[in-house]
């Protein structure tokens, strides 16, 4: 009998692999032992309290290209163990509990096995926390992390709802969950569906498969953009809409609802991509567009009527009557969230005690206000409120290395939403507020249905991006009054290269920045597509501006240049 050939790895292969493996960890030779008593005292102090900002050298922690850490940051004993217990362990444990609470592990596993956006994106979610919370200490760390926790909870809730109802996971069979789900474009505000919240689940089509994935793992969305272009779509339309269409083209959209509601939010691209989604969506579709010229009092009745028509459609499709009480209850809860948001803005604008960093502020706000009511928002706000109160009462400077208060304007880069964490750590640029946080900036009356519907119409008109980008240039130029309102001295001007609306005003912005003598950094990007402008390129642009125009030295030089091309 001939023995099978067994190819043993060459010693050099093994050595190489071992070396590569060892390279994933910090080199013990890099550890510098204290030489004298003073150094020993400093080392002990740094161990206990964490290194001061200028000595952290956070860039040295990264593994080349991957964005992984040789080791996670040592933030001092208290904050490191807080991170370990209350962020890392807590969130892993709660993710498991959320899966059990909102569904079951078998369904989760089936969904993970079936959908690329699930498996490729959401397993490394703790790294998303890491990137956003880098360098944070104390109350800023705590408050910002609660926001991330809330978003994770809602994300799990949504994809478990999808999987529970998904016909694709059941050989095409439609179960009770399917019949009690309502699909809608992610830019349709969740509040439209409040009147059926007791028995029906509203699930945005693309929020989980597209929008949230861009922040957590920016590689996933590239498959969908490429898929849309593979059927002949040119490369220049907004990549958000391309990806939304691409989800269907790549057969990666769950079959979780019998009907869908679409919208023209935020712009032409959303209208156009609906045509492709319509083709691939088997059930009835209701289009609920909002007027573009939303300041015009004449358009409000029209918009309100569209909402009423949408409700009629939902009643027809579900057979379930409109429930005014449920609508009002949920609207009141949402109003609570809005009122707390205003309190936060007040603290952010007038003090340096605001404990929420730029990325947590931006993502939480857009998620919460677009998705609509969920218990976790209230839980989070309660926790954050305590931290906020503590910071204000004890006058805690939450971002002590702030050199510039930045307002971020226009559509943000989804694949680098944590650029502001890097910018604070490297240059002391503290992003206080951003444009998308400022939309949906109102409460909704619940005194009578007519007032409610009119306010809902206005609310929906004030949706992300469109609140500032359409309906007249005077909206986009609200930047100046918001700069004043939030006491910002610098602008991060997002330059979404494929957004026709924003590309159409670049010259006027340049003129105004010059006229008003405002320091503005133009940050080009392609929304979810990192291939057009990489994170490294974004950092280079900021570095160039800060060193050549502002003539400042970095707080942490190790963060100036590093390669994270292949990172999540």
């Amino acid at each position, binding site marked *: 009998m001939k023995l099978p050939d067994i190819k043993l790895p060459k010693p050099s292969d093994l050595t190489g692999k071992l070396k590569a493996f060892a390279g994933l960890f910090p080199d013990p030779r890099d550890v510098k032992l204290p030489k004298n008593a003073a150094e020993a005292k400093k080392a002990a102090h740094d161990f206990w309290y964490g290194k001061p900002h200028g000595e952290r050298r956070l860039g040295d922690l990264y593994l080349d290209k991957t964005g992984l850490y040789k080791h996670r940051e040592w933030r001092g004993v208290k904050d490191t163990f807080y991170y370990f217990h209350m962020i890392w362990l807590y969130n892993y444990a709660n993710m498991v509990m959320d899966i059990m609470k909102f569904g079951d592990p078998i369904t989760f596993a089936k969904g993970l096995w079936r959908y690329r956006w699930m498996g490729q994106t959401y397993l490394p979610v703790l790294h998303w926390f890491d990137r956003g919370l880098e360098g944070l200490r104390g109350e800023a760390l705590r408050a910002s992390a609660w926001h991330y926790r809330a978003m994770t909870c809602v994300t799990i809730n949504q994809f478990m709802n999808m999987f529970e109802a998904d016909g694709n996971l059941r050989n095409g069979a439609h179960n009770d969950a399917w019949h009690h789900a309502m699909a809608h474009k992610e830019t349709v505000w969740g509040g439209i569906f409040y009147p059926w919240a007791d028995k029906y689940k509203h699930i945005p089509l693309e929020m989980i498969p597209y929008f949230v994935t861009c922040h957590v793992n920016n590689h996933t969305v590239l498959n969908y953009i490429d898929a849309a272009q593979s*059927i*002949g*779509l*040119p490369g*220049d*339309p*907004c990549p958000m*809409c391309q990806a939304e*269409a691409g989800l269907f083209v790549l057969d990666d959209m769950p079959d979780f609802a019998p009907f869908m509601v*679409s919208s*023209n939010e935020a*712009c*032409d*691209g959303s*209208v*156009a*991509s*609906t*045509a*492709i989604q*319509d*083709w691939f969506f088997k059930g*009835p*579709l209701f*289009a609920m*567009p909002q*007027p*573009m*010229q939303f300041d*015009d009092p*004449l*358009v409000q*009745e*029209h918009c309100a*009527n*569209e909402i009423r*028509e949408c409700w009629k459609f939902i009643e027809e499709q579900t057979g379930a009557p409109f429930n005014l009480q449920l609508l009002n209850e949920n609207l009141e809860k949402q109003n609570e969230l809005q009122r707390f948001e205003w309190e936060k803005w007040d603290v952010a604008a007038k003090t340096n005690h605001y404990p929420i960093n730029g990325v947590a502020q931006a993502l939480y706000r857009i998620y919460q206000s677009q998705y609509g009511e969920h218990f976790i928002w209230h839980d989070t706000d309660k926790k954050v409120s305590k931290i906020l109160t503590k910071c204000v009462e004890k006058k805690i400077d939450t971002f002590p290395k702030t050199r510039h208060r930045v307002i971020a304007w226009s559509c943000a880069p989804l694949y680098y939403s944590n650029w502001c964490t890097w910018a604070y750590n490297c240059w002391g640029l503290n992003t206080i507020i951003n444009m998308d946080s400022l939309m949906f900036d109102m409460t909704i009356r619940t005194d009578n249905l007519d007032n409610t519907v009119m306010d809902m119409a206005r609310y929906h008109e004030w949706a992300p991006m469109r609140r500032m980008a*359409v*309906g*007249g*240039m005077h909206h986009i130029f609200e930047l100046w009054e918001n700069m004043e309102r939030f006491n910002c001295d610098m602008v991060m001007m997002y330059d979404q*290269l*494929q957004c*026709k*609306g924003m*590309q*159409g*005003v*670049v*010259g*006027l912005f*340049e003129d105004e920045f010059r006229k008003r003598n405002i320091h503005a950094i133009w940050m080009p990007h392609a929304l979810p597509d990192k291939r057009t402008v990489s994170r490294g390129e974004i950092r280079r642009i900021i570095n160039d501006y800060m060193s050549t125009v502002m003539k400042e030295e970095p707080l942490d030089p190790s963060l100036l240049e590093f390669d994270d091309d292949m990172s999540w």
Partner: protein
Amino acid sequence: MRDLKHLIFFENLLQEANNELVKQAKSEGKKALGYTCYFMPEVLLDLPGCFSVRLRAPRSGSPDMATYYMSNRTCHYGRALLERALEGGFNFLDAQMATETCTVTCRFQEHLDRMDIIKNPDFFVTFTDVPFKTNENSVEHFRKQLQAHVLDELSEKFGIDTSDEALMKAIEEHNEVCRIITEIGNYRKLDNPPITGYEFHVIQLVSLTCPKYLILPYLRETAEELKTREPEPAFPFRCRVVLAGAENDDPEFTKLIESCGAMVVADRYCYGTLPGREQIDVKEGQSPLDAIARHHLDGSYCPRFMPREQMRGRKKYLADVVKDYNADGLIVASNKFCEYWSYERTMDALILPRDYGIPTCSIEKEYVNASTGQLRTRFQAFVESVEIKKLQEAK
């Protein structure tokens, strides 16, 4: 074929937005009202005392100044218009009747509003909101918008008579233009038409860019002339195509297609006639404004419309036009950076060949077609493929 009597005159009119007839109307005290979109009903802008000018930027070069304002990642058409405005080419305008129907032209019009570009102290810009559906709610909305942002503005600012009688008179004149253009356009359905696609494109464009009351006599004469015009002895083209797509106000583009052997027998694009030159029908007891609003919503196949039956109906409409005009194929052309038509064109190129068996050529072009060599190659290849298909079907 014998040259059309007024063709050269028409071609000259199209060389400038402020052409001979526009100047004449202005000298007669009429107000020049600019617009860019089908959803701004030209009939309202042709009320007695004013005239509509659908904006073009003929003979555009590189829009450098406009590119500063609007970057080089926006539709060239919008930038070319802004460039022309910055150059002073639109200083004759008394008002811009704007619509927020597509982002880039909207931005162009917002620039007109915000910057002091048009050197006319009375110049103003008014924006009309256009719905995305054609249900009753939308019709009522559109009617109110037209009343407030078009008629009331004209009345208030220029003292234009916007009564129902004035509207009916404008509709009458408008319908005559439509009748003549449609009559001329119908010749293209013939097996050997006495008019080329290029000629028709020129005629349609002058009807959009010149005062109606001044161009009508020429259009009437041309229509008469065509009744007796002898076509070529044999059909001079290799195939017949429908040209569909986004904004297209360049007859040279049509000429380019026809020079490759494909006659453009139908024009289903912005600035085209399908739809665009249907007569407005005012029913008994209906207000003229209501008729106008309905006409422009019901009759449009713009990719802005969102209801499913309209999104899908557009494909059928295109197929019907191909059949109606005995076309052998379809060319769908959109401007680079046109969001709506990028998606619409993609869908057309997939659905029409698959479901209707219509050979379809999908191309992207610029407003100023510098790369005619590349386009020529595409069109020639398309014509050959259509010919091969016809041969195979004949077998």
